[in-house]
């Protein structure tokens, strides 16, 4: 399945680029990600738990970043083995283009599944992959921008926003945390 879409992010291309290279950001944005270790250069080892239709599985595999043109584009590729559930692999070609309000992050996602996942879940796999991709880039946008209003981030209760400084600082968003402000 193939999917082409974009997100407009209220941050400059350099900031967005740096975020993509931050494993903590990746971990936070990959839905169901239980762990992610490694570096942008060597690639990451990831453990992701997902449920596709009747098949729930823990995928272990590699996430690699390639074709990197700093501040402009890169390819994120992942391949996970889900044991008896089969496997999933996919990639996203990501481009960054400066916009008046920030950055337009364009992505072309391709996803393939195999084994039981394909045999039993093929009917729903396209929709599932789209949902995962949407979720990933939406989380990424939110993480980079930070909530515009306290409590605006889905799942974040207002009282959490009012928690002690350290955490509140994080909730200001990744960009403010890294670049100050």
């Amino acid at each position, binding site marked *: 399945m193939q999917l082409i879409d974009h997100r407009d992010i209220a941050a400059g291309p350099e900031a967005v680029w740096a975020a993509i290279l931050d494993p903590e950001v990746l971990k936070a944005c990959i839905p169901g990600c239980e762990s992610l270790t490694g570096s942008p250069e060597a690639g990451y080892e990831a453990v992701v738990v997902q449920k596709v239709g009747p098949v729930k599985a823990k995928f272990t595999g590699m996430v690699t970043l390639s074709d990197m043109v700093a501040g402009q584009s890169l390819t994120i590729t992942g391949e996970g083995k889900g044991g008896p559930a089969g496997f999933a692999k996919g990639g996203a070609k990501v481009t960054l283009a400066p916009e008046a309000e920030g950055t337009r992050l364009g992505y072309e996602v391709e996803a393939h*599944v195999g084994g*039981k996942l*394909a*045999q*039993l879940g093929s009917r729903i796999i396209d929709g599932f992959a789209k949902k995962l991709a949407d979720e990933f880039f939406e989380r990424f946008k939110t993480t980079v921008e930070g909530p515009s209003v306290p409590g605006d981030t889905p799942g974040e209760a207002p009282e959490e926003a009012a928690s002690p400084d350290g955490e509140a600082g994080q909730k200001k968003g990744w960009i403010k945390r890294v670049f100050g402000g």
Partner: protein
Amino acid sequence: MPKDHGIGASMKRREDVRFLTGRGQYTDDVSLHGQTHAVMVRSTVAHGRIRSIDTSAAAAMPGVLAVFTGEDFKDMGGNPAGWLINSRDGTPMREPKRPVLAHGKVRHVGDAYAAVVAETYAQARDAAEQLAADTEIEELPAIVDMAAAVADSSNRVHDEIPDNLCFDWGWIEDNRAKVDEVFKSAPHVTTLELVNNRLIPNAMEPRASIGEYFPGTGDYRLTTTSQNPHLHRLLIAAFVMGIPENKLTVVAPDVGGGFGSKIYHYGEEAVVLAAAKKLGRPVRWTAERSESFISDAHGRDHVTKIELACEKDGTFLAFRTATLANVGAYLSNFSTATPTFLHGTLMAGPYKVPNIYVNVKTVFTNTVPVDAYRGAGRPEATFSLERIIDKMCRELNLDPFEVRRKNFITPDMFPYTTPVGLAYDTGNYGATLDKAMEIGDVAGFEKRRAESAKKGRLRGMGLSTWIEACGIAPSHLVGVLGSRVGLYDAATVRVNATGNISVMTGAHSHGQSHETVFAQIVAEKLGVPESAVEIVHGDTSKIPFGMGSYGSRSLAVCGVAVTKAIDKIVAKGKKIAAHMLEAAEEDISFADGKFSVAGTDKAKTFGEIAFSAYVPHNYPLETLEPGLEETAFYDPANFTFPAGAYICEVEVDPETGKVDICSFACADDFGNIMNPMVVDGQVHGGVGQGIGQALLENTSYDENGQLLTGSYMDYAMPRASDVPFYTVDYSCQTPCTHNPLGVKGCGEAGAIGSPPAVVNAVIDALHRGGLTHVKHIDMPVSPSRVWSAING
């Protein structure tokens, strides 16, 4: 009054008593002391190179007794193809080795490359999952599309076969030039490109096997889901494992449907036998339904271009076809015969068409092997013919009933030799067409169409006049055509001392009702009640020999072997009776269970003769052996040629594209009928499967060779609500001229004749509704395809 027993009676099926009360004994019901459980490890990629398999972790898991990989079987023989086909240039087909377990490469999703045996099923399964995790397979680009496969030599299913082509077959090559010439000058030419959709057999009982080894004697025993236990024995013993045939017993107990998929030998059977020997314990394996989807041989999968040359009045001049036939990743046992000699030889249909040329290119792909499935090649031939004839009728504005009638071979023309190598012995195709038009109420169609129109539905009527060559047998013929085996069958009739009878048949019943129908034949011929006759099948240690049940051959081949053995019993009985009655043998006649001296009231019952044969106190021992048991092998002189006419009526909802089948009328000529109720059931089942192919069933692979229709959520099987009440008639009977029962076979008929009737009806409905831009819709004719066709 209809007969209540014997030949021609609609006797209820004796096997149903155990099936309907849950007392059937299937392979998976067999439980053995000390048994162990095998689970296969199957490829999740369509094409890949096996880089490494680390068995150590799996082998150390609780309960694990043995782990096997392709390496353990690499020195064993390959699972062979049963028919040798030569290409047009005379070169033999390419035959890659099909190993017990994949070695070096995996070639389809579901290709088993390892097996784990453990104390319990759960332990075996856990270890199989571990083994899969410890296996490194480098995924290679999958070869899925046939046209791409033959065009690209850089990517190969088998490294030694550059263009993925198994063979390029021409039938008959000598016809080719003449056919081409006729097309050049023909007044009209119709062309049609069509797909015969790939089907998954979906027998109700999944495949299962139990291997046993007896170290004291060195004997093996395989209990398995087989349509032909002796064929399994031959393939496993002589070709794959190198076991002497007399050291291997193959038992096929109750088998829950096969439709062709259980003809073939599969690697799991060799695995359980080898594992049983290694462990000294029984090893069992039963497929999960998900495994069946990706490991049972699939059916059909042809892409065909067919052309018809004719006069403006619809008189056929020539047919020419070019087909790509998918064999999948390996050659299954009958896979090379199905698209060739079960397909190309039928391309004349029931018609007197003077010129025919058939070309079939058979292609390897990274998909499950494809082989014979109910009808096997003949549904593909019939679909191509009946669809293009219908298209030609529309192009020339001719009546499809009359065009077929005009082109029929007529009863005075038999025996009739077709341009594609068959000699039809008898038939009356006009009679079955008339009968179909009567029971299908063609005359009343217009009224029904108007009724449908009031509901906003488009009603259409589709016709298919079909023929098949079945009773797959004559060894001299199939030998010429490339078969590597003989296709006779055998039966032993054993009359016991107390007068009851055991009949051992080479035919195997897995839904065909042999236990009922063969008993009727024996009862009729020997004048004994059916209850005195036991039919024994499915065990190589009990039955004499046999090539099994497929190709609508059980009755026409094995049934005749039974009658031949009975003839021998009666002949011997006459000798015994002549002695006991002190009469000349030629004066003894046998009727209604009695041996009588002509012109007298002196007689001995069948039971008295049987008793005398085993208690030979008053018996001609000097000239006659005691006992009353006879075996006959029967090899027919020709195929049988059942034929018929099917009329399907459909309603199409133009808003949604949904097709509903309103009625289905079948007028068949099966020759003589042994049990009408069983014939009804066979036709109902066959037509149901044909409707499934026409409207619902489709096997879909994605571009990576992943099976997308791998469960009943995505693979649409026909349900009761999808099929109509059938009108079935087989009163038009031209008995087969070369077998003594005069029977032709009925098992595949419905699946052969029905798909084109359904599709023709859908196209007819659209045309009558003014949607004349729709020339063809590929099967399955699903609502989305119909809607898309309607809306351009």
